[in-house]
């Protein structure tokens, strides 16, 4: 089972400091919530972890190797970034088929994941006609294709309706309960308090808190209160 280890990540774009020394771990059997306001550096960190962007310095490892050197990435890490990650002119099924093909996964697996995320009936529709929530489900379906032991999800509950959020929560809890690693980012605190075990809070490219949900919530009434206290320059 793989631990995600991020160490001293620095990302500069031009003269802008996107990340200034981000480091944390996401462990197997736990859901790690990577929280922070928009523009705090959550997506940049996840994009570097997934080899999409290059860090100015620092390392991001899955187990002991960088993502780009994984021998079988789709079976190791399931990733979901912005939107659906699919071209709008393709059907949901056609999208999943090419992803499956790239890893030599059987076609039947496509129908299985469509079933898991509840998109079976929309599988023959073009992605351009999907709602935001359906697009997110398709993105998750692609992440699940290889039945990976690690999930990396950027804002997974964004755009989901309350039922979808509830479904996602149950789903991620089950994944973690089976010993897998789940790392998700979000700027929505309320939805996450009941989903995550560990919390990493990032603000302006820097980790400002890292611990279990109980540790972070601490003396605050809710995770949300703790979050605002940490990210708006409040007391700690």
């Amino acid at each position, binding site marked *: 089972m793989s631990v995600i280890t991020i160490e001293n990540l620095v990302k500069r774009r031009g003269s802008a400091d996107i990340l200034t020394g981000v480091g944390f771990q996401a462990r197997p059997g736990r859901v790690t919530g990577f929280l922070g306001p928009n523009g705090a550096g959550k997506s940049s960190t996840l*994009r570097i972890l997934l080899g999409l962007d290059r860090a100015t310095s620092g390392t991001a490892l899955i187990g002991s190797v960088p993502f780009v050197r994984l021998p079988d990435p*789709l079976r190791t*890490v399931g990733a979901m970034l*912005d939107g659906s990650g699919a*071209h709008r002119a393709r059907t949901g099924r056609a999208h999943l088929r090419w*992803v499956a*093909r*790239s890893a030599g996964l059987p076609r039947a697996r496509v129908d299985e994941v469509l079933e898991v995320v509840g998109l079976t009936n929309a599988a023959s529709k073009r992605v351009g006609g999907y709602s935001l929530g359906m697009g997110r489900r398709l993105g998750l379906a692609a992440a699940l294709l290889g039945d990976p032991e690690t999930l990396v999800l950027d804002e997974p509950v964004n755009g989901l309706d309350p039922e979808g959020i509830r479904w996602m929560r149950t789903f991620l809890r089950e994944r973690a309960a089976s010993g897998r690693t789940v790392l998700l980012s979000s700027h929505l605190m309320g939805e996450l308090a009941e989903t995550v075990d560990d919390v990493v809070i990032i603000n302006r490219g820097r980790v400002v808190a890292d611990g279990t949900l109980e540790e972070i919530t601490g003396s605050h009434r809710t995770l949300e209160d703790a979050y605002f206290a940490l990210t708006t320059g409040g007391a700690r």
Partner: protein
Amino acid sequence: MRVLAAEASKLVSLPSAWIAMAAGVLVPSVIAAITASSALDAISRGAKTAAGVDTGYQELAFGVVGVIVLGVVGVSSEYFTESAESGGGRQITTSLTAVPSRLRLLLAKMSAIAVVSALLAIVAAAATMGAVRVALGEHAPALGAEDIARLAGVVCYWVYTALLACGVTVLTRHGVVPLALLITNTSVVSVTYLLTKITTLANYLPDMAGVRMFIPKLGGDSVEMSPLTGGLVMTAWVTALLPIAAIAFTRRDA
């Protein structure tokens, strides 16, 4: 092979790729049918004795727009950004998380585009030469051994053009500009052709040189170029551009 299969699957499930393929077959064959029938008119009126030796080939030089579109959309579809309401995602993130080796991904994509372009060129050449034959009947120029070499030149020209379109789009990450420039240059106003009027060096531009592989004598020729030289010049362009595209693709943030 898996990655190539995935890239081929991407290409054939993209509606704009089918439009490109339809254009690649229809544009040259329909134009060839029209020009051939007007040539037939001229022959029956006695104004001409035979159809030109380039009948069909000129149209195939035009039909290359099909693979230009194919090469461009094959790449630009990766970078097409969804609206903010749909999450603002791009397919390239899925492609690179499925196949993190960028060089492998790009090679597979270019191979898929090259293979489809070659097949398309063969179908288009058959359709175009067929249309010429149907329209001209007994007046159609006889196809000989020389035509096999010329048609091979057509296939080569199409594949190279698709790869150049693909390479340019890797650099721009957007389809509109390369599509507009390359299609306009091929169909509406051939800027590269006009340039040959100003400088003979323009004959060494990829399209002007590549066309020599099957139309050795261009109208108002200032420079003699053999099909082989033309092919080599275009090969040089492709081998210069693709590594630049590959370096950009592997180095920059997705």
